[in-house]
C-alpha cells in the first residue's frame, strides 16, 4: 500500500511525505488487525488516507472502555 507521490509534489518534501505515508500504513494495519481479531476479513475498501481517522475512532472507543475499567488496574509504580 503506497500513496500517490505525484499528488503531494510541491506540498510535502520526501521526508515529510515518507513519514506521513508510514503513519497512514501503520494506522491501516492496526485497523485491519482489529478486523482479523474480530474474525472479519481485511477491509480492502479502506484507503490509506482514511486510515488515521478510522484508527483514531477505534482507539477512542477502546480508551473509553479502558477508563471504565481503570479502577481495577493496579500499576506497579
Amino acid at each position, binding site marked *: 500500500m503506497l500513496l500517490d*507521490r505525484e499528488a503531494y509534489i510541491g506540498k510535502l518534501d*520526501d*521526508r515529510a511525505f515518507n513519514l506521513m505515508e508510514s503513519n497512514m500504513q501503520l494506522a491501516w494495519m*492496526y485497523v*485491519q*488487525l482489529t478486523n*482479523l481479531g474480530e474474525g472479519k*476479513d*481485511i477491509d480492502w475498501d479502506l484507503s490509506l488516507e482514511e486510515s488515521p481517522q478510522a484508527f483514531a475512532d477505534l482507539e477512542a472507543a477502546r480508551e473509553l472502555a479502558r477508563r471504565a475499567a481503570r479502577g*481495577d488496574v493496579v500499576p506497579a509504580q
Partner: protein
Amino acid sequence: MTAAKRIAQSMTLPCGAVLPNRIGKSATQEGLATPLGHASELNVTLYRRWSEGGAGLLISGDVMVDYSHRERPGNIVIDDNGGIDALRRWAKAGQVAGNQLWMQINQPGRQTPIDVQAHPMAPSANMAGLPPEGFGMLRAMTEAEILDLIERFGRVAATAREAGFTGVQLHAAHGFMASSFLSPLCNTRDDAWGGSLENRARFMIESLRAMRRAVGNDFALSVKMNAADFHKGGFDMEQSMAVIAMLNAESLDLLEISGGNYDAPAMIGAMGSGSPLARKKAERTLRREAYFMEYARRARPIATMPLMITGGSARWMRWRRLWMRMQLTSSALPGHSAHPPIFRQSCSMAKRRKSR
C-alpha cells in the same frame, strides 16, 4: 538448492528448537489487549489465523513489562496484573499449526507516549531524536531502576515459558529502551551504562542474560536490533557490527535485524535525516524492498547465530519468484492470498555458521 527449497526447509536453532520452515512473521503490535492489559479473544483469533498461515515462526507484538510504560494503550502487559490463563489461550492458538511462537518483550522507554506516561524513564533526560510532539519530558533512570528493569525482562520471559510460548525475543530495536541505550545520541550517561560502545551495549546484554537465566538453555532466545538508527550521530552500522561481535559470546538463537525509530521509521521503509538513502532521489519503491539485506550480507560473516531480516521482504520474495511460498503464509487472509505485501511478512534468511 533453489532459494524456494531452502526457505521451505526446517532449521534447528542452537537451543534445539526446530523452525518448520524459514519464513517468520516479525513482531506486530496488535493493540488488542483488554483494559487490564490481558490477551483478549481478539488476540487469540488473530494468532490462530496467523498460525494457520504456515509461517515457521510467529513473533508476538511487543509485550510490556511495566504498566506505567506502555508503548501504546492496547498492549499486553505482564506486571503482576494476572492474566496467565489468557496468555495460555493466546499461546495455544498461536501454535495450532505446529510453528514456533515467541513472545517479544519490550519497555518503550523514551518513546512511551505522553498519554501513557508524562515523564518516561530513559537512559538520559535528553529529547534528541524524538518527534516534536507526543512525548513527555524524559527522566534519566537510576541504576536501581536499570537493574529492576533487567529483572523484569527475566521475569516476563519466565512467564512466557510458563504460558506456553516456545521462545522470547528482546526488543532492542526501533528506539525503545534497549535500543536507546545503544545510541550515543540518546544515551549520554557517564556511568557503567553509557559512554563506550561496550557500556552502551551492557543494558541489552544484561537483559538477554537475565532472560536466558529465566528460561533455561532449551528455550529459544532472540534479540531484534537495529542495523542503524538513521540519526546523525546515532547508532550506526559500524557500531552495530561491533555489537554483533559482542553478541556472539551470548547464547542467542536468532538475531533479527531491523532499523530506525519513531523519528526515522526505517523499519517500515521511511528513512531519517541521517540516511544517505533519504537524500538520494532513489526510486521510492525500490528502497522499500528488503531494505536491510545489504546490512545482513555484511553481518553474516561476523555473526555466529542465525540471522533474520525484516523489512520489505514481501515484494523482494515476489521478485525471487517465491510467490507460492508467500501464498502459503498469507492464506491467513481468506480470499486475499494474492496480496502478501499487505501482510508484511518477513523472511527468515537464517543460516547457522556454527553452533555455540
